[in-house]
């Protein structure tokens, strides 16, 4: 960690921080499992391209229903997790609450989904919990950051009252606009998560998207993908705040039915399936040996890959975000900015696993496709947020502001840079989580071994590996918090 932020000017501090990360990313490339193959992908790309422009789905009802399921899971998931997030944020000064929040958000939605699926089957509850639990942890962290940025003047007038009253009568009303805009942003993320949960079998859009794509039915995959893109791209046209309650009730009604849950099975899952046999038999030495073997054979190599891919993808995301965002800002490129915005919409909507597959066709199987996929997706997302900042701030520009490249380099970029760094730090743990997921492509990250363990019905091993992934995330999260603090970066607006 030997990163030291010297007492120098703000600009130099940002520059040094950026250079340190670039250096680490460069070194990571030597550790990542990178190899360049020369496949012959053009026939397959031809099919994919043709599919994209000839979308086709034989059964409109089926597609509509999975779109509605996608929205239902996302809506209910965000509603419940935002409420839980507020509660957690109120007591965020307690270390136990902070650690709890960090742990629950450190496990990827897909892993939560896979765990709950063992207990609740392919049910509405599995989907809701898989979104609600990590999102509650994320809301807790961001809401707490937002509270900290509020002026304390209002709160001081309530000094005699309880913590709860201070929050509900002073902090929350004051922070509400920032909270609301964050909830809105999270809703888009929830739509993506909800769709992705289809990959493991929940009846959302991802279910059909994954099957069609995996089997090479690209016209069908394209049909699902366009529906998903339109759904995300038009949220502000179909989501009316005033109808929120009606939407939530509708979502509850639309959820897939819930199969009966066998209580003894739930008990068995938590008390037996998750633990190695030797531990259950009281053979502590045997259990330690078991954990030791998993650590040496799987966790060790997987950690190196996971971290190397993350660091490389993080810096590449940053470079791409800076290169792309001006093209999506009206003040920097003029009236064609919508083209840039559309590109960013596509990039942040295509699930990373699919991007990775496309890159695998190009470069062959190695860590390279994973790095590119993560960078494109996250770069697209950060660029979108930066473009929004740029558009908002430029509303109050002077008439003699520079134009074109000069405006980008001498005015907009320096103004955006602190927010850019802060966003990148926020994305760090997300990229880490997602790079662990890339393992399902066959690149030996933590996710690869988790996936194998589930496939071999070895829940004890899957659970242990998920805990390791979670611990890694908690470390990155706390490192990111320290670095942000040291660099004096504020919570960015989403």
């Amino acid at each position, binding site marked *: 960690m030997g990163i030291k932020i010297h007492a120098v000017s703000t600009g130099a501090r940002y520059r040094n921080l950026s250079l340190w990360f670039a250096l680490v990313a460069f070194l990571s490339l030597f550790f990542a499992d990178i*190899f360049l*193959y*020369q*496949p*012959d*992908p053009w*026939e*397959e790309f031809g099919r994919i391209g043709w599919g994209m422009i000839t979308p086709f789905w*034989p*059964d409109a009802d*089926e597609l509509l229903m999975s779109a509605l399921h996608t929205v239902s899971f996302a809506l209910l998931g965000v509603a419940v997790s935002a409420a839980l997030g507020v509660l957690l944020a109120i007591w965020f000064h307690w270390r136990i609450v902070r650690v709890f929040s960090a742990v629950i958000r450190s496990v990827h939605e897909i892993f939560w989904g896979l765990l709950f*699926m*063992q*207990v609740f*089957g*392919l049910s509405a509850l599995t989907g809701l919990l898989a979104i609600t639990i990590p999102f509650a942890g994320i809301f807790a962290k961001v809401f707490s950051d937002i509270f900290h940025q509020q002026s304390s003047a209002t709160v001081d007038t309530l000094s005699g009252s309880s913590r709860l009253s201070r929050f509900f009568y002073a902090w929350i009303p004051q922070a509400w606009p920032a909270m609301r805009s964050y909830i809105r942003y999270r809703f888009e993320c929830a739509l993506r998560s909800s769709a992705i949960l289809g*990959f*493991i*079998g929940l*009846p959302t859009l991802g*279910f059909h998207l*994954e*099957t*069609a794509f*995996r*089997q*090479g*039915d690209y016209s*069908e995959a394209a049909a699902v993908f366009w529906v998903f893109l339109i759904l995300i791209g038009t949220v502000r046209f179909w989501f009316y705040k005033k109808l929120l309650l009606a939407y939530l009730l509708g979502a509850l009604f639309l959820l897939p039915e819930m*199969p*009966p849950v*066998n209580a003894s*099975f739930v008990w068995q899952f938590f008390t037996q399936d998750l633990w190695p046999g030797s531990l259950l038999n009281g053979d502590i030495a045997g259990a330690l040996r078991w954990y030791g073997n998993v650590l040496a054979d799987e966790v060790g190599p997987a950690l190196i890959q996971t971290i190397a891919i993350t660091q490389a993808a993080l810096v590449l995301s940053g470079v791409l975000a800076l290169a792309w965002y001006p093209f999506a800002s009206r003040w920097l490129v003029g009236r064609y900015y919508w083209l840039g915005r559309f590109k960013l919409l596509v990039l942040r909507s295509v699930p990373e696993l699919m991007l990775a597959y496309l890159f*695998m*066709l190009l470069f*062959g*199987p*190695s860590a390279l496709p994973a790095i590119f996929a993560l960078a494109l997706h996250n770069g697209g997302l950060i660029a979108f947020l930066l473009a929004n900042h740029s558009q908002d701030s430029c509303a109050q520009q002077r008439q003699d502001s520079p134009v074109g490249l000069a405006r980008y380099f001498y005015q907009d970029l320096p103004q955006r840079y602190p927010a850019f760094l802060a966003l990148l730090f926020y994305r760090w743990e997300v990229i880490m989580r997602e790079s662990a997921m890339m393992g399902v492509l*066959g690149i030996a990250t933590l996710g690869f071994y988790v*996936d*194998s363990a*589930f*496939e*071999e*019905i070895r829940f004890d091993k899957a659970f242990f590996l998920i805990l390791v992934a979670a611990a890694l995330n908690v470390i990155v999260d706390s490192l990111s918090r320290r670095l942000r603090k040291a660099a004096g970066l504020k919570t960015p607006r989403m």
Partner: protein
Amino acid sequence: MKLRSLFAVAAGMLMSAAAAAETFTFTAIPDADESRLNARFGKVADYLSEQLGVEVKYIPVKSYPAAITAFRNDQVQLAWFGGLSGVQARALVDGSEAIAQGYEDQFFKTYIIAHTSTGIEASDELPEDIKGKTFTFGSKGSTSGRLMPEFFIRDTFNAAPDELFSRVGFSGDHSRTIAQVQSGVYQVGAVNYSVWDTEVEEGKIDTDKVKVVWTTPTYPDYQWTIRGDVDARYGEGFKEKVRDVLLNMKDEDLLASFPRKSFVPASNDDYAPIERTGKAIGLLD
């Protein structure tokens, strides 16, 4: 009053849960073409329902582990499993039984396919030249895409795939294995023979780019597995009835969903070789 209505709701929920338990539910993942599962297997459900005289429902799943989980949790009582997933499922649910298999599943096989640029020639033995190439299996839990090819590879070369090949991948799907070897992403792959044959017939494969270089010996694969407690829950002789109904499924439209010519009787013992193989390569404990 409030409490009473709460009780009424609770009682109603219990009753609907009891009623739901009467429904006989099954799942199936075909080895090829997973599109429109609901529509295709909905028809199979209708047929079973008509023949068995109970309500039958189909639920679609994404993967073998998901099917096994659903079977173990009693979310489904009947499942169309692959060879390995059937063994795994039966180990988890006491008294469960393999009752029928596809006609083709009595002598299933795997093709080892290679990109033509590798210069590997078709042969009766597993070609020596596949060493050092990049290699992809299908799904990690697949019998024809993983278990059996891995077994024969280890058996021939006395080494694990990681040691033999320069890179080992899991494409996740037979069609994708073919697409990946054809586009040269991997040089060699293992694929379910029936998926390959079908795709060749449909003209989906460019045989100038990818070809079969070896065929494994035969082994038993897909089968219908049923939970042991169905007689107690759906009436005496229910298991036999399900078996008969499956064996008598003659409608080609229904059989095409699997896709199989017909179903023939099977027993747990038929899958002993699969279990031994699974243990031999460490996929089963």
